[in-house]
């Protein structure tokens, strides 16, 4: 990507002091490092809301925004952000008005991501906190090694379905797949190596699609309240799918949980 002068302007000049209006960044021909540097500068100068337009493949958007004071910012992305969107995200809120690529929320710590479209492979990889909502489908290895720690419990809600290796080596957190297109879950190797966390699938799944380390069980009332909470947020955030909350919550769900916290403890014990 060729370097170009960064265009930046305030939407309403008279309200600059309040710092509540979105700053506009035109990302045309702006490189990854420069774009993230600009976001950091804006955050440190007190901006609370940034719109980035013409995003086309710039990586790591939203990373490098940690401060000890935990400053927070809302970032709206128009276009197609590149790989590892919101990697290490620290409390910020990111909305993608379009599709996202691979590695969304890689090792994110806290914050929220909304994708008004589809996401690519390794969505929520090593995520350890925060919430991700994807309206449509996602690719391979979703929630790969997602984990939880003390009060941190990451949540991932996907409106469509996932491809193979969903929840591979999953160690914690909640992954919910709503399969709103009504296709059955076709993924294989679901939960391979899973040793923590929980996956909720709307509809059903064949035992052969699921890793040997995983139990498939019906949901109970506690599970229903978890689903109620996060599916409500999902439906509220993506009104374009229609008011389907009741229908979704009344559907059949299955719960996938690990049989053991240490599935490989005997692997090398002869």
């Amino acid at each position, binding site marked *: *990507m060729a370097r170009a002068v960064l265009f930046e302007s305030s939407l309403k000049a008279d309200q600059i002091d309040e710092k509540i209006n979105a700053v506009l960044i035109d990302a045309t021909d702006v490189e*990854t490092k420069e774009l993230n540097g600009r976001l950091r500068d804006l955050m*440190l100068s007190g901006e609370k809301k940034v719109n980035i337009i013409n*995003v*086309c*493949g710039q*990586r790591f958007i939203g990373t490098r925004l940690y*401060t*000890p*004071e935990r400053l927070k910012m809302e970032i709206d992305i128009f*276009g*197609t*952000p*590149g*790989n590892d969107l919101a990697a290490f995200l620290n409390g910020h809120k990111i909305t993608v008005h379009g*599709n996202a*690529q*691979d590695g969304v929320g890689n090792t994110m710590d806290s914050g929220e991501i909304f994708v008004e479209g*589809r996401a*690519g*492979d390794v969505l929520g990889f090593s995520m350890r906190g925060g919430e991700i909502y994807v309206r449509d489908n996602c*690719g*391979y290895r979703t929630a790969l090694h997602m984990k939880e720690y003390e009060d941190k419990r990451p949540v991932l809600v996907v409106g469509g379905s996932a*491809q*193979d*290796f969903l929840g591979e080596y999953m160690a914690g957190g909640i992954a919910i797949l709503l399969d709103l297109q009504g296709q059955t879950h076709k993924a*294989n*190797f679901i939960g391979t190596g899973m040793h923590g966390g929980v996956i909720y699938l709307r509809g059903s799944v064949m035992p*052969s699609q699921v890793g040997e380390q995983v139990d498939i069980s019906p949901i109970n009332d506690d599970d229903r309240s978890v689903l109620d909470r996060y599916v409500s947020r999902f439906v509220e955030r993506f009104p374009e799918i229609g008011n389907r909350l009741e229908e979704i919550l009344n559907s059949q769900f299955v719960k996938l949980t690990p049989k053991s916290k240490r599935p490989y403890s005997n692997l090398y014990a002869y």
Partner: protein
Amino acid sequence: MEFKIIMPRIRRELYNKEICACSIFGAMNQDGERFTGASVMTAIANMHVRGNGLGGGFAAYGIYPDYKDYYAFHLMFTGQGIAAKLSAKKELDAFLFQNFEVVYDEEIPHGDELNLSDPPLVWRYFVLPKKQGDDSLISDGDYIVGKIMWVNSRIENAYVFSSGKNMGCFKGVGYPEEIGEYFMLDKLYSAYAWTVHGRFPTNTQAWWGGAHPFSLLDTTIVHNGEISSYGTNRWYLEMYGYACTLQTDTEVIAYAADLLMRRQNLPIEIVAKILAPPIWNAIDRMNDSEKKLLTTLRMVYAPLLMNGPFAVIIGQTGRMIGLTDRIRLRPITAATRGEMFYLSSEEASIRLISPQLDRVWTPNGGEPVVGELNSMRTVLQ
């Protein structure tokens, strides 16, 4: 408050990690309308960070309508200095004129050599086979493949890197957008399908012959990944007369495609199951006839299984195929817009040249996604 990162050692001792991986891109107009290389150069440049400037290349279909009945040989003559290059060319010319009717030949036009590292002399010849004696019994394809293997393994510093009809490869050491500019692909050529590659070499040294695409006749391959079964594949292909001389793992995919698709006439659906077969426990769950087919393929073609991560775009006259390894360890995104069909490592590159898309999806591992011309007659006429 800003944190300062303290450098524990002096800068020159630090290993600077580059974000990297190869990039692949393909665009096809399924109505057969031809377009210049400008848009694919723009698209691949958007994935600049996936490569490191040590290889870039293009395959273009439909670029030589005036010579469409002749095989277009693209040759590179390497070696230190112009004398070595010309001496390789002299030797090649003697061989070529003896075995082929050459109707036209010229140096491939290019831009300023100073912008690239050590460019070879690149020449094209439009030829027909001149089969003599026993050779008249074999097909043109077999004849040409035999002669290419002879050139690539016997003539020092001469490599045939493109040999199909009405198509051609252009490649070299540099970023793909630089190679595109060097060969002026945005100005001189129009194709109905382009595939492109930006390279980040992992196992072998970068050189002009080692850039992608790899090709034989009209089949071309651009590849992101690493073929860890290269040794086995190479040994098997050598039994069928393919000499792996270009020092890059991707070469075996091109020759495997030639063996399976041209010589053995297998459809791409079967070829995909040979190169990227389902794993055994998936085969166990299939019905009896599928199980028998897949088991047979795995037995007969075990040495052509491509192990390791890969995403490839296979180009052929009239079609473009995307395929990944069976567990998709390398990314590929497919998209359509009207008559246009796209394949790319990243969706953003497609959006850059076609912001509106009808459909975007990521094909399952081991399942080929195929774009074909709506009418083959458009190309063949």
